[in-house]
């Protein structure tokens, strides 16, 4: 062994460790003009997606075939947009009490399948929808969006307790008939509403109990019916309106001030509107202690992907994210492959022999830069996109938490995907191979899964559970509601995984690729 060096370096080195490697990698990143341009393209392209949305307009058509001005849907107590149309036979009653009723029938009719949203005025067909509803309700008022809790029978989902539009709890299964009636009971005690069901009126089960803090002392107590429009996907796309009639008897009101007089009110309907009479105008009859209520619509969250859904989702403003992902991933891949191409990687490792730390420093540098660029792009895209969208159609509201999650999630998605591309670049070493790998791993599955009709729905959803594109769930602005039948498909912006789970899938891919890249760096010569 020959021992070298009697000269001792006289230069002073500053801070030790990982920080200076990150500093070095950041210096590399910012001193190549092409990469800086690409990093600046991330917010530009992400934001440009919003500009493509200007011609989105409302597509509702009235009975006379003329377009109807889209009115922003009402919002529920939770701030979400709601569909709130039904017929209610009600009494205003103060204080605590209990309403009980037996449902002996839920019948319905609907328009034949239509391919345009123009209401059909004749030729109805019998039948109920899975979420046709009839039952008893305690509501804060008759305005759309009022706080409520209700016990109901449904066309295909058994007895349910629902409250404040998004809450849903299952009771007795099966359909209702004269031979198999359902007893429903709703009790108010202060702000607490409790629902019960029974098949015989003797043995009662508790279905749910909720606290409605915004319920006034004098609430509307009543019987209701409604039925949502339906969608048919095969053989061709179509849908139509429907109506449901519930038949109630054995009605018992244990309430101070209760009478036998019921007031019929169509909530959210406008029977004498400019479009003429609505063929599905609700009504109620009361004879021999039996009440029938007929109504159309839904008491549920507003979902644009239904037959008569209104509004657009704010996530459309973030459509550009996938375009911003292109420069983000390509810069990250080239950030490392350029060093292999020029042999510069040898100098990098001579300067920092612990290669895993170099990879980590590169990941921090390119990930942070992409995150900041993505954050700016997503914030601009969402703010300007919502403004552009609302010019044509109401943008369904969402919570501040959701907005923050969408913006920060988009930035994090871009950053982690960039680190994935960096790891793939480290494994591939050649720029062309790396970019091909990025396209194959990130973009191809994403496009196959989100472009409408390219693959069967099940395959598309499967892809979005297992490929990095699952992370696009972070931009989903509205959840899919099981109690509203809609086209919850990737093509319409509904992802099979939650934002956190989808993001975790991307993180798992990135962690695996980083581990493989770190292993390869240690194993191979440069």
């Amino acid at each position, binding site marked *: *062994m020959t*021992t*070298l*060096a*009697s*000269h*001792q*370096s*006289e*230069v*002073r*080195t*500053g*801070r*030790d460790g990982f920080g*200076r*490697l990150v*500093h*070095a*990698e950041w*210096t*590399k990143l910012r*001193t*190549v*003009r*092409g990469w800086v341009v690409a990093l600046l393209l991330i917010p530009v392209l992400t934001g440009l997606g919003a500009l493509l949305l200007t011609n989105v307009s409302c597509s509702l058509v009235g009975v006379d075939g003329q377009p109807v001005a889209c009115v922003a849907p009402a919002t529920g107590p939770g701030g979400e947009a709601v569909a709130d149309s039904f017929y209610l036979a009600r009494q205003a009653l103060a204080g605590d009490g209990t309403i009980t009723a037996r449902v002996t029938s839920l019948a319905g009719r609907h328009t034949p399948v239509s391919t345009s949203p123009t209401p059909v005025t004749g030729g109805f067909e019998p039948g109920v929808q899975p979420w046709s509803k009839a039952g008893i309700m305690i509501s804060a008022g008759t305005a759309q969006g009022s706080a409520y809790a209700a016990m109901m029978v449904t066309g295909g989902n058994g007895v349910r307790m629902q409250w404040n539009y998004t809450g849903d709890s299952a009771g007795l299964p099966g359909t209702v008939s004269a031979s198999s009636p359902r007893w429903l009971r709703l009790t108010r005690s202060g702000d607490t509403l409790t629902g019960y069901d029974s098949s015989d009126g003797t043995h009662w089960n508790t279905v749910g109990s909720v606290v409605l803090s915004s319920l006034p002392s004098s609430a509307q107590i009543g019987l209701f019916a409604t039925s949502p429009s339906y969608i048919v996907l095969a053989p061709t796309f179509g849908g139509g309106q429907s109506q449901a009639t519930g038949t109630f008897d054995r009605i018992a009101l244990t309430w101070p001030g209760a009478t036998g007089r019921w007031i019929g009110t169509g909530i959210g309907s406008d029977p004498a509107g400019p479009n003429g009479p609505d063929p599905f105008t609700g009504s109620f009859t009361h004879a021999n202690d039996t009440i029938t209520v007929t109504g159309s619509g839904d008491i549920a969250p507003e979902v644009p992907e239904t037959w008569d859904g209104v509004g657009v989702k704010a996530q459309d403003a973030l459509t550009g994210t996938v375009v911003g992902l292109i420069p983000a991933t390509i810069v990250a891949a080239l950030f490392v492959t*350029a*060093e292999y191409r*020029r*042999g*510069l990687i*040898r*100098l*990098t*490792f*001579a*300067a*920092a*022999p*612990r290669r895993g730390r170099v990879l980590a420093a590169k990941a921090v540098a390119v990930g942070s830069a992409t995150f900041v660029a993505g954050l700016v792009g997503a914030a601009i895209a969402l703010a300007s996109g919502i403004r552009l969208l609302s010019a044509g159609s109401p943008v369904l509201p969402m919570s501040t938490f959701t907005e923050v999650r969408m913006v920060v999630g988009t930035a994090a998605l871009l950053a982690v995907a960039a680190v994935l591309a960096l790891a793939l670049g480290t494994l591939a070493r050649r720029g062309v191979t790396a970019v091909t790998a990025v396209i194959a791993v990130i973009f191809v599955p994403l496009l196959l899964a989100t472009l409408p009709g390219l693959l069967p729905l099940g395959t598309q959803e499967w892809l979005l559970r297992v490929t990095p594109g699952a992370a696009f769930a972070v931009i989903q602005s509205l959840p899919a509601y099981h109690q509203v039948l809609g086209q919850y498909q990737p093509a319409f912006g509904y992802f099979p995984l939650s934002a956190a789970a989808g993001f975790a899938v991307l993180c798992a891919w990135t962690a695996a690729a980083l581990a493989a890249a770190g292993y390869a760096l240690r194993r191979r*010569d*440069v």
Partner: protein
Amino acid sequence: MPLILDAPDEGTALIGGTPHTALHAPLTHIGALLDAGALQPSRSARNHLLWLAHSQGLPARRVDEVVEQVGLGSAARRRAGGYSLGMRQRLGIAAALLGDPGALMLDEPFNGLDPEGMAWIRALLRTLARQGRAVLVSSHLMAELEDTADHLVVVGRGRVIADTGVADMIAAASGDRVHLRTASPAEAMTALANAGATAVFGDVDQLTVSNLPAERIVAALTRAAVPFSEVSAHRASLEEAYMELTRDKVDFRAVSPE
């Protein structure tokens, strides 16, 4: 190999007694010129040195110092892709000097340099060695090494063929031969043979004499009254010494005739 860019089949390489991977700021211990073309073409020389300095925790001031030291000056702010081979060579040497290391490993540092650059790097290498640094130079330019190197390791086909001082190696290749210029070569050969020397004909009026020191050659010729015009000790060049050394390594030369 000491930089562990390529893993050894066996053995270890230490720098100042420490493995490269354990060095706190490796470039302050060993600087290397690996490949002058190892640059991001669109990055300026100064920024190239800047990231390298950051990776060692060195201040940006140190970058300006080495830029001046290698004579890049104002060109350092231009993109390195537009550099001549000689300028890239200077940039690579600046990178090696950045950490003011005690050991330098320079691969073919003379490549692409003009005569002025050659003189500059020879002087630089001597200066660096005089400052107490170990300067390892690998090169195929024997003439340059002859003037600059103190110690020589000849490697062929992955094996050490020679590990010796440059002066020793040249002396060994030179032998004790003496060149003799004379108008009477036949008489001179006789006289020298009598004195115990071996002489062979070289050019027309020249003999190469071995086994006898120059002063005893002069004495023998004088005693025999043989006229001569020049007696000079033969000095091999490093290139000759190298050829001499590798002459027997037929295998090596057949594969790699350089």
